[in-house]
């Protein structure tokens, strides 16, 4: 077995799981199942990043998205004990039509990209921790990075202000 073949097998495994889990997330009626399906999908994406030679991005994908963010989603779902969503017959004709139209547009876009791109796009790229850090903290993205940090800080302060109880009402 050659290395490309081995990589191809792993790639299709991860890709199949990622797509399957993403589909399950959308189709699933139970919100908790959807959350778990999204986690599986994110983890499989991390596997693909790892195959493309960037374990740093893969680890970040799991730590940030599959770990930190999704655990909060699950927390809310479990604390509120959200039940399976019920559907009333004949509800939302218009939204169904809009959904079908938008889905067709998306399918067309994906199809045109697939037709246009014959060769695999993922060329070799350096996404090691060092390369990413240099990119983020050198002059190109430094201001953007700092602006994002301030945005996150502002939202943190906002959340605390909203959650804090007034000591003397």
């Amino acid at each position, binding site marked *: 077995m050659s290395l490309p073949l081995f990589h191809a097998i792993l790639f299709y495994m991860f890709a199949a799981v990622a797509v399957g889990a993403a589909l399950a997330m959308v189709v699933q009626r139970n919100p908790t199942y959807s959350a778990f399906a999204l986690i599986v999908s994110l983890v499989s994406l*991390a596997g693909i990043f790892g195959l493309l030679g960037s*374990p740093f991005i893969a*680890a970040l994908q799991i*730590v940030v998205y*599959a*770990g930190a963010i999704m*655990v909060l989603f699950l927390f809310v779902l479990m604390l509120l004990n959200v039940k399976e969503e019920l559907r009333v017959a004949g509800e939302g004709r218009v939204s169904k039509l809009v959904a079908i139209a938008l889905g067709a547009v998306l399918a067309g876009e994906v199809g045109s990209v697939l037709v246009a791109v014959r060769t695999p796009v993922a060329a070799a790229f350096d996404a090691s921790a060092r390369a990413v850090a240099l990119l983020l903290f050198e002059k190109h993205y430094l201001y953007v990075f700092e602006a994002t940090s301030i945005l996150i800080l502002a939202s943190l302060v906002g959340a605390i202000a909203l959650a804090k109880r007034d000591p003397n009402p």
Partner: protein
Amino acid sequence: MSLSPVQQELAISTVKVLVIFGALMTLFSLMTYVERRLLAFMQFRLGPNRTGPFGLLQPVADGIKLFFKEEVTPAGANKVLFVAAPALAVVTAFMAVAVVPYGGTVSLPHWGWMPDWLEGRRIALQISDLDVGVLYLFALSSLGVYGIVMAGWAANNKYTLIGGLRSSAQMFSYELALGLSFVSLILVAGSFRIHDIVDSQKGWIWQWNAIRQLPAFAVFLVAATAEVNRTPFDLPEAETELVAGFHTEYSSMRFALLQMAEYINMITASAMGANLFFGGWHFGIPGVPDSPLWFIGKMLAFLFFFIWLRGTVPRFRYDQLMHFGWKVLVPVAMAWIFVAAALVLWRHS
């Protein structure tokens, strides 16, 4: 028989995985026995001493007992997630071990009867020497939380749900402190690779991060104990309030799997403590050859420490736990990062 280089690597990795899996299973079952015995001695009891010499066969007896017990699934439980939860917990626990190094590299001897590619081949004592080893560990420990959350929710029982929620809140609160305690080590070593961090502690004993970076070590010690849900931070299974926490409804082998995940996580945390803070396979005195034996000794010392802690300190209250994590550990770790960063900058300029 000639193998392509990829097949050779695969063969070596498979053997490594099997050996380490076997070693971990042995260590896990021994730990269940040693923990009960040591705790008993600390409390002036004898502990299990009837099965085999000194009671050493106790894990075997426990295993057989658990194997033949009935698997109970509560009527109101979510069947799929209830079964998936222990599996998820155990798989993530074992996957985390993949980046733990046990020593440098060893060369196979030239025996003459092995295939050519194996004769004198250098083999790293680690399954995968990942560039971002430390981050990988965090990734898996954050996935490990889901096993517990899932177990708590799927059983459809208020005690398990509260246990699961508590446990996950505790784990991601202390994960933050744990991560911050590693940042200064990464700064000093200049690398995420666990191997490089170990090598940055080569030389005399005071080169070890436990001494050179004492504040980071203190934060690590507390946060790691909380991360693996050990006393005094074993609130998820506080039996006086929550029956047995997230694994109340589990029985038989599923219960055994959850226990196994907990012990494997404890072993990983001990191995990381030995590697990142106590110089791994370096002895601490220049001239003494590096050996995996030193690493194993340090790891066992950590495991003993966890048991000792359990025999010594009482459990925290939940609000104390959260306050301590967010208001003491995180600020201390943050402050130390600034100090360490300043020192690194000063040394380089």
